[in-house]
């Protein structure tokens, strides 16, 4: 496993795309934080949450996490796009160890980037507002760790989807189309009286449920589980995709 981790660490840091994806995630969140801080005073938890977590829970996707999920997609998808899976597997032939190393390095990188992003956003809003509400108390004592979990889950999901499809475009499509179109459509249709049977389904939509990890208050337009159970819904979805991708990776021809 240590050889696989060293391999993956060198792999991820010798790609230019790693740097611009991380830089894009940090910059997007920072610009968002500054924009929110400049246009609105810290009136309530929602505004502070939106400034610190790149838009808050009401957005269909956590935008910074999309960049890190793309890093995950490239980590597995490019192995097939460029045929590097052959030198990879002739160097580290134990596939489960390799996949575990990929996920570990990606998750650790995503976690570090999310922490840096949060700290940068806090410093930015502090500079503009001159103060920041207590982040160690409710709801931020749970929402900020929730943000870190959300970013890691998206990153792992990106890698799992690209491994499952062995295709960068297919993984990107699923990662964007499902939360931005499919789930939003189901969410909207659940308000149609004839389709109100969809309402109980909404809390099981994985991406929408995942956004509850960074929920800090405001109007709820649908019924959801609480923060950590909702996070569990996304986690179960990621785990299912991961399990299928992992199984196929060990069984398929390279």
């Amino acid at each position: 496993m240590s050889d696989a981790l060293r391999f993956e660490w060198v792999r991820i840091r010798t790609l230019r795309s790693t740097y611009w994806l991380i830089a894009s995630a940090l910059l997007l969140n920072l610009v968002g934080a500054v924009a929110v801080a400049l246009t609105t005073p810290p009136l309530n938890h929602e505004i502070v949450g939106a400034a610190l977590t790149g838009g808050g829970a009401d957005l269909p996707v956590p935008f910074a996490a999309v960049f890190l999920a793309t890093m995950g997609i490239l980590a597995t998808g490019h192995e097939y796009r460029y045929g590097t899976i052959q030198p990879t597997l002739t160097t580290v032939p134990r596939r489960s160890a390799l996949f575990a190393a990929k996920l570990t390095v990606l998750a650790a990188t995503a976690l570090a980037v999310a922490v840096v992003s949060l700290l940068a956003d806090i410093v930015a809003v502090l500079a503009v507002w001159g103060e920041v509400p207590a982040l160690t108390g409710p709801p931020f004592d749970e929402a900020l760790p929730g943000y870190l979990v959300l970013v890691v889950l998206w990153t792992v999901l990106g890698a799992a989807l690209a491994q499952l499809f062995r295709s960068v475009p297919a993984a990107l499509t699923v990662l964007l189309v499902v939360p931005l179109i499919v789930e939003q459509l189901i969410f909207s249709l659940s308000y149609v009286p004839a389709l109100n049977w969809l309402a109980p389904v909404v809390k099981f939509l994985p991406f929408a449920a995942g956004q509850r990890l960074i929920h800090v208050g405001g109007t709820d337009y649908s019924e959801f589980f609480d923060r950590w159970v909702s996070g569990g819904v996304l986690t179960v979805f990621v785990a299912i995709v991961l399990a299928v991708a992992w199984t196929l990776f060990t069984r398929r021809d390279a």
Partner: protein
Amino acid sequence: MITATALHKRYGDRVAVDRLSFEVRPGVVTGFLGPNGAGKSTTMRLMLGLDHGGGETLFDGRRFTAIRHPAREIGAVLEAKAFHPTRSARNHLLMLAAGSGIAASRTDEVLEFVGLADVAHKKPRSFSLGMAQRLGLAQALLGDPATLILDEPANGLDPHGIHWLRDTLKSLADEGRTILVSSHLLSEMSLMADEVVVIGRGSMIYNGIVDGFVREFTHATVLVRSPEADRLSHALRRAVHDVDIHVLDDGALRVSGMPMGDIGEVAYRNNIMVRELTARTASLEDAFITATAASEEYVAGGVE
């Protein structure tokens, strides 16, 4: 020593590799030959655990996937351009070295050895096929392995590159390494390989020394020029019943099924003047075409 036993691979109803068993000995270059679609690449992928199938390949008694640092024992390159186009050649090798516990300094040594030191920090997206092949060889040699498995390493190399590859592989074999190389360049293979594994439609055709393969699948011929070609033909047929004699356009005879010395003796005994006696040895290409004619997967139409 590579020992492949009953390698088997099936895609649906089609058998790609049919219970192939062979050995690749150390100290010699072994050519892996077969027509397009014969199953060479699939066999190599099975050997390295890249594809799942039946059978077993042992490298000095161990399966590839059971070796902790396989790159230190088996250098394998199955595709010339298996690298990320924006990761520099040196970083590509550094990544592989990191996964194999190989010192980073070794990457510079192998890049120097294959002649890519000047482009070590360049992104390989613009590499020619020949440069990509050299990077592939650097990758294979990274762990200074005792075994090399190379799929078409001469593709894209210029004549100097091919000459260099041949000398390199032969000198590596002389050091006692086990080398299995597939190639379509039969003239090159005849200069490079000491032994061959020849397959067709996934099945074994021949495994042994090159000369034995040529002898088994071709007939040596003798070119004979004589002012009394007709009389000589009759004399040869009287001497050996099933001798095969073709009269060429210029009146010369092409004789097969009779050694050159015997032809000279028959001519001498019959007082027939002979102006030329030339033994013509069949080539590896002749043997390959004969051996694999029935197992060609893709056959082009003739020229009208």
